[in-house]
């Protein structure tokens, strides 16, 4: 019951936060000079005043601010995110089309970074001054310091141009024919470089943290006890120490989930990945308020769900976590 209650309180806060985010963003978008009518006219090579006025009237942009805001919040409360001015499509539809691609990219990159990061951390923690450990440190710093778009372009030049192993852009090759597996392999090939690019950023964090906590754990009493019992080193490391070192890493992974989504904006732009990041970027440039707000709404939702899942995962690896989460 306590668990449910704390979840309910959190959900309540989340809703308030979401509405605040919507109002704030709507107001900020409104404060900026110019509007979507300008970008529509840009995409058409110029428009006269009559047409601009007509576009503004069509989309209710000529209404006073508070009426526009009221309409929008009213719509969202009825689960209607509005209509994209720029793409002539309902925002919900637009986002749902793009969401799977982003989730696929972000979750794969996150899991990959977590998995490899922990392994690298553990290995280097066992020999803190070994060559491997220094290599991990170097790789971690490099991955964290290099801008995502730079890593992306570099990988493209290396693996799409010099050796042509992976395709340059997009999520699938529409000329490919065949069944499920042909498409699966095709998507996997398209995913490889974006996932590595996005993952490299977070690999650094996880491996560093895993290394630090593992070193700490390896020096603790229960590990000494386990060793004294006569367990093999591998058993000690992987059965006892690792489990105890994981929770900070998982906590960090949960906290980083929002960062992964923002990192995805850049990675998607470089690889033309048809996800929410590209859409966010383009709709900000196009000043397409309903789409931007819709994406923020969905991102907030994804982050909240991600955090809840983190809680759940923590409970699984560490029974001490519980109660008032």
């Amino acid at each position, binding site marked *: 019951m306590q668990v449910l209650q704390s979840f309910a309180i959190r959900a309540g806060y989340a809703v308030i936060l979401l509405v605040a985010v919507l109002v704030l963003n709507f107001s900020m978008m409104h404060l*900026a000079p110019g509007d979507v009518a300008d970008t529509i006219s840009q995409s058409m090579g*110029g428009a006269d005043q009559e047409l601009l006025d007509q576009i503004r009237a*069509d989309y209710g942009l000529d209404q006073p601010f508070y009426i526009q805001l009221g309409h929008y919040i009213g719509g969202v409360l009825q689960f209607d995110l509005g209509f994209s001015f720029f*793409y002539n499509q309902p925002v919900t539809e637009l986002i749902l089309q793009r969401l799977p691609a982003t989730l696929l990219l972000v979750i794969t990159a996150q899991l990959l970074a977590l998995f490899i990061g922990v392994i690298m951390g553990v290995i280097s923690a066992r020999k803190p001054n070994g060559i491997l450990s220094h290599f991990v440190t170097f790789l971690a710093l490099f991955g964290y310091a290099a801008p995502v778009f730079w890593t992306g*372009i570099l990988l493209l030049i290396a693996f*799409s141009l010099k050796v*042509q192993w992976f395709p340059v852009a*997009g999520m699938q090759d529409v000329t490919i024919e065949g069944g499920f597996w042909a498409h699966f392999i095709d998507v996997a090939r398209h995913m490889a470089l974006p996932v590595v690019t996005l993952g490299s950023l977070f690999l650094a964090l996880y491996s560093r943290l895993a290394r630090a906590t593992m070193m700490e754990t390896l020096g603790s009493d229960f590990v000494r006890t386990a060793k004294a019992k006569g367990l093999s080193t591998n058993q000690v490391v992987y059965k006892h120490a690792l489990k105890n070192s994981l929770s900070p890493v998982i906590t960090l992974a949960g906290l980083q989930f929002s960062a992964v989504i923002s990192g995805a904006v850049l990675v998607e732009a470089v690889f033309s990945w048809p996800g929410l990041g590209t859409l966010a970027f383009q709709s900000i440039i196009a000043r397409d308020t309903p789409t931007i707000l819709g994406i923020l709404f969905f991102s907030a939702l994804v982050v909240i769900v991600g955090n809840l899942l983190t809680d759940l995962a923590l409970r699984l690896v560490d029974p001490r976590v519980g109660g008032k989460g």
Partner: protein
Amino acid sequence: MKYSIKGIVASVALSAVMATGVIAEGHKTGGTLVTVLGSNVRNLNSAVQSGIVTGYPGAQLFASPMRYDENWEPQPYLAESWNVSDDGLTVTLNLVKNAKFHDGAPITSEDIAFSVEVIKANHPFKSMFAPVESVDTPDAHTAVLNLSKPHPALMLAMSGQLMSIIPKHIYGDGEITDVKTHPRNNENVVGSGPFKLVEFKNGEHVILERFDDFFIEGRPYLDRVVMRIITDPAARAIAYENGEIHMGAFESLPRIINRLKKVDTLTVTPDGYGAIGPIDWLAMNTAKGPLSDVRVRKAIAYAVDKNFIHKALMQGTASDSTSGIHPDSPFYVAQDGYDVDLEKSAVLLDEAGFPVKDGSRMSLTIDFGWPGVKPQVEYVKAALKKVNIDVEVRASADFPTWAKKMGTGDFDMSWDTVFNWGDPVIGVHRTYDSTNILKGVWSNTQSYSNARVDELMAMAAVETDIEKRKALYTEFQEIIADELPVYHTNTLPYHTVFNDKVKNAPMGIWGTSTPIDTVWLDE
């Protein structure tokens, strides 16, 4: 002229080929052409949405009454012939008899009349069909356009992406102004062109398929056309190079153009942009402060070194541009440039009453609409420093922010890129017409006003004699180059990139904004 004799001979030969519809060397049919769009498509219906991104899919999905060859000569397309009355007030189109829409319904004069109505109500370029008062449909294959005054610009306005014929029985189910947001603009499109829509996935691709009942026998040659949406220019460049993409247009970054030119398997060409006519210029607000004095504007032109812009900034990829008309247009007459002359510039500024005080004559601002031209703006700042003009570079967060400044006259100078869009009436007049000083970008934002220029444009708009028309535009260009509401520097270096497998790549005046029904793949 920069064209070689060989080039002219080749283009004449090719246009002869296009006109008769027979390819001398023979061609292969079938295959999937993979091409690229540099930004997301907003709307596939080119009758209601202008712009280069819609133009490419739009011209494949929808046919127009005519098409143009490389020499700016109209050729039959959906209209097998046409006739302009002696007084220039009626234009009769005789339609191809066997033409069908993608749903099998015949294309009739009713659809022509409907399309004109839709374009007039929704398309941003009002000047294209403004003089068209009504369209008569004496029979199913004859459409008569009744004009309020002679309108020579109509010919170009009936070609390329500018006059897409859309089916009345599909798009005529609501208010005429609602066609802009018609649900079938982006899915289940019923067009009249050589290719029909298979799938449009927003942000990902547009896939088109050969329309078997297309009204030109044996065309198109390709089975499928894929248009992938890749917004990052560096990623596009790699995709051309590794063969993932066969062809793409509108590449404008000098660094990338020059890099791709070195790739053996690729052809990189500036041909095919004459009608779209993109030109870059330094806009000067003639209604505000020191720049309202023509001597100050001239002084600025003398201080800015065009050579530097061409060699260092455009890296040799752009053409010279000296008047408001694109250099590939038949109306273009090159004007004497303002070769850099700092002394002359200083004298002009002194004469205008701006002597050097404490090391500075005046302070001006300069804006830019997109990050790609920031180097030009920074260069102007440095160049004007030499004649003691302080320039503040003002960045804009995004396009609407900049557009607002331009539209409300809140600027001294700005770098701007404006397109000709076929006839000067459509894309040139708007910048210099004193009745077009409006809020909104790409109107006469410089607030330029000259009664003679207004008069010349008004006469040229209704002059049906091509030589007389050219003479009017010659005088027009002389005045513009002399009075400098904008200082013309260069064309925007749009280039088309395609690899060895692509034959008959679109290089007419409309580039990819024209049907690619003769393109084939040598695989």
